[in-house]
């Protein structure tokens, strides 16, 4: 009995103390890299990072920080991300001054502490100009061509559907109800219409109904999207053809929505 107790205690001691200390104390902390910081067409900045090593414990949190100082600290415009296959990303949006230089840096934490990645700088953060070929009155629509007539549109914010598409609806007391179904996140850019209800990235399916008239735009037309603020967009469609009752004659659709 005594021998078993002694052996058990010795075993506990041997096992408990067998996790030798790592030679380099920095190996306890995570190692991360800031891979890229790219200005998107809508003026946001997509920042990507990677976990190079977890350290001596599982990763707790990862994210980025951003500042006009050359070495941003963790709490400077902090974004917390999720890791997927060793990579993580975040989208910084809004209020960048075009004449300032911004510095982005990744960070990661585990039970032992935290570590920063390298810093990347980005300057002239500004949205790419999207200029539609027509100038329509805001919040109007005309399904017969020409300047919009039906006014006072109410526009919903883009909502993500279970399919992964993003849908916006525009309704008016005296005009067609319009639905725009985007195949990817709604951002500043030019989207192309498709004539089916499951658009891919950078594609959009535009349908409408006005009384007994139900239609959708033909494939190949352009939809000009300009992001004004978070969830607020200026969207223009200029003379996009659609066929009434699938007939041979084309009608032309004009729309400008501004707001959300």
């Amino acid at each position: 009995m005594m021998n078993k107790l002694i052996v058990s205690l010795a075993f506990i001691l041997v096992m408990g103390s067998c996790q030798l200390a790592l030679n380099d104390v920095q190996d306890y902390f995570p190692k991360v890299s800031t891979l890229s910081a790219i200005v998107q067409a809508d003026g946001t900045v997509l920042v990507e990072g990677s976990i190079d090593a977890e350290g001596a414990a599982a990763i707790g949190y990862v994210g980025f920080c951003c500042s006009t100082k050359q070495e941003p600290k963790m709490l400077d415009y902090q974004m917390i991300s999720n890791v997927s296959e060793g990579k993580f990303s975040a989208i910084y949006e809004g209020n960048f001054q075009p004449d300032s230089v911004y510095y982005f840096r990744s960070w990661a934490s585990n039970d032992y502490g935290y570590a920063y990645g390298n810093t990347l700088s980005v300057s002239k953060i500004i949205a790419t100009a999207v200029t539609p070929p027509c100038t329509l009155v805001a919040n109007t629509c005309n399904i017969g061509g020409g300047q919009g007539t039906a006014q006072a549109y109410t526009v919903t914010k883009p909502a993500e559907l279970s399919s992964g598409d993003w849908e916006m609806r525009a309704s008016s007391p005296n005009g067609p109800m319009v639905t725009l179904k985007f195949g990817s996140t709604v951002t500043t850019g030019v989207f192309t219409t498709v004539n089916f209800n499951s658009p891919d990235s950078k594609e959009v399916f535009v349908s409408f109904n006005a009384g007994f008239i139900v239609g959708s735009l033909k494939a190949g037309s352009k939809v000009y999207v300009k992001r004004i603020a978070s969830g607020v967009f200026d969207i223009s469609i200029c003379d996009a053809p659609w066929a009434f009752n699938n007939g041979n004659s084309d009608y032309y659709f004009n729309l400008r929505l501004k707001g959300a």
Partner: protein
Amino acid sequence: MKTLIAIVTLLLFVTTLSFGQISIRVFNYHPTGEFGFVMSPLTSLELGLQGRFSKRIERRWRANMSLVYLRMKPRLDVFPVAGFAVDGKGSRVIPGLQSFQKYNIAQFIFGYDYAIVHKEKFNFYAGLDLLGGAASVDYELVYPSWKDETYQGGGVMVGLRARLGVEYAISDHIGVCINTNRSGFYLREPAAKLWAIDYGLGVRYTFN
């Protein structure tokens, strides 16, 4: 009951040890686990009273009693630590700083060795000790603009130590040994479970 056990244990030691038997051991102490993350290895001395294995084959046990003082040094001047806060400002990972100003440990150790291989001059032995003692700890742990968990104080500790070693008797009076210990102890305040390994070289001298 606990007091009675302690007294009986000490009496057993007294009967097997005499002040005519002293030992000194220099050892290299390696904290392991989280203790090893924070504290550097160090070299220290262990001073004690140590019995000797009898030349008579039937006496393989010997008792030990010793004192150890460990003045731990942190591996970094400042450790970067991170906390997670959820409050009116949302969810944030908050960076903090921890630095150790003092981490001193004094241990009182007593236990037994058993000679697994027992020759006239050579013994290969295993041992098990009880550790008691105290630590004096000062550290700063600050998350700027969030919280301050700076600590000054200390507490008592209890633990165990297991050992393997070889001893060679140079003469009837002098024996030299090489051994390694694995120890684990619980520090009550600030609460911590600490583990370590050490490797040492010792000399035992018996006056009579």
